[in-house]
């Protein structure tokens, strides 16, 4: 990656994080359920902020990153999802909450919400966040890659 592209990516990441902070998101939010309408609204606002601030280069990188997920997960509505739950509508959804999907106990009906922050933490080390998850993916170490991936998911989400 060129230095110019790196700078652009950092700027977009910074913009997203800034918007997220301005929106008043708290780290505690990830421990809450989506049953509180105000908190749900906040989580959704975070995703919208990421979606709106994503640059073309970020989305291009995020799309490349998503190819690692696409082997198991569908992203579009109704798309075949051969090895994991569909990620359509994941933004703001409760963890392990798709009706009827055979989650392992490690991820079924968890109290957390897929906020931007929680998704970022999870993608970095899925098996540390939910030990025993059937997700074999070991984690995306590069924070820029994670930011781009989350931006791409946001861009495809019905927000």
């Amino acid at each position, binding site marked *: *990656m060129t230095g110019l592209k790196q700078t652009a990516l950092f700027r977009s990441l910074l913009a997203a994080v800034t918007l997220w902070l301005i929106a008043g998101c708290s780290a505690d939010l990830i421990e809450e359920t989506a049953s509180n309408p105000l908190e749900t609204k906040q989580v959704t606002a975070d995703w919208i902020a990421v979606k709106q601030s994503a640059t073309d280069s970020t989305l291009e990188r995020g799309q*490349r*990153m998503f*190819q*690692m997920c*696409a*082997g*198991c997960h569908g992203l579009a509505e109704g798309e*075949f*999802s*051969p*090895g*994991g*739950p569909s990620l359509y509508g994941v933004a703001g959804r409760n963890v392990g909450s*798709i*009706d*009827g*999907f*055979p*989650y*392992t*106990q*490690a991820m*079924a009906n968890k109290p957390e919400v897929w906020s931007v922050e929680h998704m970022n933490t999870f993608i970095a080390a899925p*098996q540390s966040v939910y030990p*025993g*998850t*059937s997700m*074999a*993916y*070991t*984690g*995306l*170490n*590069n924070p820029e*890659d994670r930011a781009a991936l989350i931006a791409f998911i946001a861009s495809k989400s019905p927000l």
Partner: protein
Amino acid sequence: MNNQDSKPPITRRSVLMAAAAVSAGTALQSCAPPGDQPIAKQTPKSHDLDFDVIVIGGGFAGVTAARELGVEGKRVLLLEARPRLGGRTFTGNFQGKKVEFGGSAVHWIQPHVFAEMQRYGKGFEEVPLVDLDATNVMLSSGEIKRISPSEFGEAYDSARIAFCAGSKELFPRPYSPFFKPGVLELSNVSAADHMESLGLNELQKATLNAELTLYGGAPPDEFSYTSFLKIYALAAWDYYVFSDSEKRYKISDGGTLGLCQAILDHSGAEVRLGKVVAKVHQDQNAIRVETTDGQTVSAKAAVITVPTKVYDDIDFTPGLSNEKREFIANAEMCDGACLFVRFKQNLGNTFSFCDDPNPFTAIQTEYFDDDFGTIVKVTLGRQSLIDLNDHDAVSAVMKRLFPKAEIEAISSYNWATDPFSRQAWPSYRVGWFSKYKEMAKPEGRLFFAGGATADGWHAYIDGAVESGIRAGREVRQALAEESASTGAS
């Protein structure tokens, strides 16, 4: 839950579970057998347990065992930890193409899987492989030799022929691998030991060492020499058949998942996905299996089909035999993974071997044309040499091999780090091939299957199917003997 009814109650949750599984295309809940081949009517239970048999694991060994018992009228429950079937096979998507992220090789010389393909009407899909346009060998130093396919073939074939020269004498009956005492005498010889004795040239050594790294999922000095020789013997002691059996053909008509699902559909077994087995308890009368969600189910017998390294995650009471525990702790080491890369350009039909310790052990073209570009499948014998999730690291190695090509997309599946496999294909460490039968021995009401227990193609789908057939037979016999002794129907 400790359900004492013969059938679990139909609940909203169970209906949703089944619906979701079908929508994911992975679950196979089907009480209706395919076509006009009805399963035998399930015999009324002669006991108060939930099922006759519980099968743990939904790979080829598990579904085959379930089918072998289901068609005989046994009430079978299959528990699978993942949200999909297939075990260490996985038919997935990459760039709009159906790809196999796990085991995929099939051949008509592999009798068990070929019979299943015939039974369920599955054909062969050929990957390019033949008529190669370009071949590369990356030496252990990292230097790349761009050689013609004929040079490549000459080095690779002659090296394997030399390495496997004793296979016919040692394995005249490969399904009875210890028929000749000489095999056991070579138990402590590693693949590297034998290779060093052959006086191979640079290219021969690099291609053969890569091949052995791939089979071992470890450096060849850790890998059993004779276990590789047995596979070669199974391929009719012929290098050409051997190559075809390991690389050239996949299952068409739905891939590995299609065949796996067909076998399970035929079984009539009840399937529960997402169920991680935590405890297996047996007593004089029953098996009780507890999953991590706290549910318990009971049966007369259980068939365990999980990969060898996963046994440690299950609490068996009473404990497994010392022989099994030693095998589980020491026998297998396969550090393998799979990677797909799409290039924008048409690179043609290529094959590359990268000698250990380069991470991308074998690279084989899967699709290529001018409009689509190229997809290559990379099989790694040692995934721990690279972070497969680091695109920059993957791209750097690919750039060295294909300097003019631009990467469009990358996707991988890491079997060694998957908590429900913990290893890729079965492979035996030096000194442990001679003990594989310990893992197959029944213990009370517990029966054992899985590729590592196969007499034949242990590193292949065929070995898993073979083991499922054998375990099914053992359970049928045991339950019949028990019924006869107790007078139960």
